[in-house]
Structures are given as structure tokens and as C-alpha cells.
């Protein structure tokens, strides 16, 4: 059975068996799930406070929704996230802060104000990103998108073997990051469910995730309320939590280490249950038959 890999984020080190909750904090007016709920900076700050209280291990701050829509240039993206990252860093000196961006210009700006992780959701389209992560000692999340253009939907994409394609792309990106000077324990790989993938692809990646967790790099999965969950169960956005948590449990069993989510406490509970079954975490309280 494959296991995780050593992982370092910010000043923290995690065991290969750790299962971390990364809470999504959108500084967007139009993301598919929260639809602008945390667009205002104070609302976003409230969200950070809430997810920290709920046990999130890190936050992932993003200024651009993944789906197509209004063009957001680097200046506007920086306006949305840089000041906010600084504010979160100030309020939570020890919190691991990730920023969801594919632009090295934005990555540099957020690292300068204290971001610990660059979550490149679009598969390395900006070749300068690893250099920025290396320069600031930040972690880098590498993703598989099949090479699609940022903010485009997959349309009639096929792979001979989607997991093999993801594996090759992710290993190549991860090794390039290390080559650029990013610490090996700070390179994370993410198969990127639904990015450059139809539902059949995302289901296959979930089913065969052990082929990625066995590669020796920590694996992040971003499953939360996504279309592949919705299509598997025929549920619209807003009714996908149960399915998300089931997929979360499967990925946890396969050894994924970071879970990018909207719902923190529910995810925490599922991950803890899997960790106890795997023997990675002792049960919380055991008296049954033991009195």
C-alpha cells in the first residue's frame, strides 16, 4: 500500500501520514460554489477566522475563479490577494498560507508579504513560477491539466491513459521545481480533478490515486463540490457534500495528504476517521469493552 511523503509547508513539518485540510478562501465575486460570499475583504477575513477555528491546517487564497469569465489581469489579481495575504499573515503569524495563482508575478508579490505555498492550478503555464517559489523558500503545488489554457473548460479531451499522463506531467513538473531550487519536501503534486478532464477521467484518477501517491511526492486533491461529484450522483452545486466526502475518504485511503475544501469540519472528521482506520491516528476515546 502506497504511503505519503515528507512534507514541509511554511515553518511546519508534517509526517507522511498527516492528512491536512486546506480551506478555500475566495477573493472573487463569482466562484462557482460561494458565488462571492467572501468577495469583501472583511468577509474573507471572517472566513479565515472561521476555518482556523474549525481546524483547517492551511488556507488557500485565490483571486480568480477557475471557470471562464471576465478577464482578470495580473494587476487586478494582485489587488485582490496581496493586501489580503498580508492581513492574514499579520493576524495569524503561524498559519500556513497558500495562494492559488498561475502567474509568477502574482506569486512573487504574495511571497513578499508572507505566503508559504504557491498553488499553481493550471499546470505550469508560467515557467517562472518554480524560480519564485525557490527564491522565497515557498512550497509549490504542481497540477495536471493536460496542457489546457488557464480558465478553459475541457471539451472532447481524450487520453490513452489519464493517470499515466498525469503521472508523467506531475513528475516532470516536480523535478523541474526541484531543479529550480525548490526544496524537495516543499513540492506537492495534484492530479487536478476536472481540470482538463471529463467526469470519467476524474473518476479514474480517484480510483487509481495510489499510482500517484506512490511516486514519493506529497499529493494534494481538490475534490470539493466539483462537477465529477455532481455528475456521478446527478447532484447540482449545493448538494454535493456527501459525494465530496465519500471521494475524500477514498483519496485519503489512497494516501493523499492535502485536501482543498469548502467544508472544513466535515472534511476533518472524514480524514480523522480514515486516519484511525489506517492506524495513523489513535481513536479519540476508547472504552468500549475495555472497562
Amino acid at each position, binding site marked *: 500500500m502506497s504511503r505519503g511523503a515528507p512534507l514541509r509547508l511554511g515553518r511546519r513539518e508534517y509526517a507522511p501520514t498527516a492528512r491536512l485540510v486546506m480551506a478555500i478562501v475566495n477573493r472573487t465575486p463569482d466562484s462557482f460554489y460561494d458565488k462571492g460570499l467572501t468577495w469583501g475583504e472583511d468577509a474573507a477575513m471572517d472566513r479565515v477566522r472561521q476555518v482556523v477555528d474549525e481546524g483547517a491546517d492551511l488556507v488557500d487564497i485565490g483571486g480568480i475563479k477557475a471557470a471562464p469569465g471576465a478577464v482578470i489581469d495580473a494587476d487586478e489579481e494582485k489587488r485582490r490577494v496581496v493586501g489580503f495575504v498580508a492581513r492574514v499573515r499579520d493576524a495569524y503569524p503561524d498559519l500556513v498560507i497558500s495562494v492559488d495563482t498561475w502567474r509568477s508575478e502574482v506569486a512573487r508579490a504574495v511571497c513578499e508579504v508572507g505566503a508559504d505555498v504557491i498553488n499553481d492550478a493550471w499546470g505550469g503555464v508560467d515557467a517562472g513560477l518554480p524560480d519564485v517559489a525557490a527564491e522565497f523558500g515557498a512550497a509549490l503545488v504542481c497540477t495536471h491539466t493536460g496542457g489546457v489554457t488557464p480558465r478553459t473548460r475541457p*471539451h472532447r479531451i*481524450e487520453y490513452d491513459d489519464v493517470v499515466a499522463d498525469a503521472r508523467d506531467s506531475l513528475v516532470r513538473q516536480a523535478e523541474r521545481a526541484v531543479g529550480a531550487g525548490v526544496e524537495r519536501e516543499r513540492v506537492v503534486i495534484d492530479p487536478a480533478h476536472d481540470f482538463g478532464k471529463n467526469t470519467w477521467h476524474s473518476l479514474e484518477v480517484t480510483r487509481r490515486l495510489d499510482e500517484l501517491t506512490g511516486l514519493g511526492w506529497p499529493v494534494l486533491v481538490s475534490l470539493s463540490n466539483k462537477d465529477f461529484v455532481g455528475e456521478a450522483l446527478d447532484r447540482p452545486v449545493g448538494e454535493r457534500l456527501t459525494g465530496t466526502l465519500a471521494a475524500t475518504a477514498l483519496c485519503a485511503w489512497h494516501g493523499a495528504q492535502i485536501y482543498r475544501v469548502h467544508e472544513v469540519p466535515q472534511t476533518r472528521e472524514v480524514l480523522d476517521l480514515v486516519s484511525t482506520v489506517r492506524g495513523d491516528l489513535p481513536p479519540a476515546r476508547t472504552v468500549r469493552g475495555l472497562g
Partner: protein
Amino acid sequence: MSGSVVVVPSAPLLLPEYTGRQDVGADLRDRAVEAIRAATDTDGSDRAVLVVATDREQRGTRPPLGQRVGRHLCELAGVGVDGVVAVSWDATVDECRAVGEHLGRRPAATLVVVADGSARRGEKAPGHLDDRAAALDDEIVAALRTADPERLLALDPGLCADLLAHGRAPLQVAAAAMAGRGEPRCTELEVSDPLGVLYVVARLAVG
């Protein structure tokens, strides 16, 4: 060439391997199969030639999606496939014309053209909304309705590529094959876009 031309969609969801518990493409598939059957009946044949585009996002080694969809639809219609003309999705008009004219010089055959309009017809469309999509699709539909080969051959490859109108090249091949061969006329034409992509089921009788 005096055989009919049938236009059918190339949506992967028409294939068994992409169909879930709910068969989302059932009606569309039925209409396409019926059109192929009607065309071959008219032509007094049970054979057809497929005209398809290569995949725009080619990553694997499988035959083009359009070819697989066309073959599947023909199979369901009980129609044998005598040949496949796979034209590059971004072929120039001259290239399409040359392939089509070559095809037109061969003995009559029913052509099954696997071709869609724009995939940018709405905010939820695969390519998101592009305001130009409706006009382009209207032009494609009008060209088919009037069975006008020159109008199909006048479609701009660059605009069609921008608007993810994947059927442009196969339509132009078929148009060149039809041109100069009697008076083509449209005998059936249905359009739909339930997923933000223009699907066309059409029959053109030639000669």
C-alpha cells in the same frame, strides 16, 4: 456524386463508452441514426462514406472522436462504412475543396458528415459564451437549409476555430463534393444546443 449528404453531431456523449446511467444523448442519437437510414434508403444503398475532422485536442492514439461517433451511428442504422475521410480540423478551404472534389469524382456514395457548429453558445458552453457564435451558426444552418455549397465553402476557418465550430472542415469537404453535381436540396434539418454546442441533423439530396 449523386448520393445524399447527411450531417450528424460528433458529441462524444453519443458513444456507449461515455454514456452514464442516464442516456443524455438518446434523442439526438435516434434522430441522427434515423437520418442516416433515410438517406441511404433514398440512395438505394446500405453503405456510406464518413467525412470527419481530426480532434482539436489530440492527446492519445485513438481514431478521431468524429470518426468513432460516425461509425457508431452508422452501425446503429445498419449502414456499412466503406471509407473514412478524416480531414484536419484546421485544414484550409483549398485543402477541403481539393479533398471534396476528389471525393466528388468517385462513384456516388452517401456521405455521413460528422460536424458541429460552435461550442461557445452560452456561459455554460464548453468554450464559454462568444457573442459571435450565434451569427456563425445561423450562417452554417442557412447554408445547409439552402443547400448552398459555395456558402459552406465561404465559412472562415479562423473564425470557426475561434468559435470552436469543429464541423467546418468536414462540411467544406462535403460542400466541394456536392458542388457542380445537380441541384442539391435540403430535405431535413433539425438543430439543437442543449449543452451550448450547436448540433445539426440534416439531409441533403444531391442529383
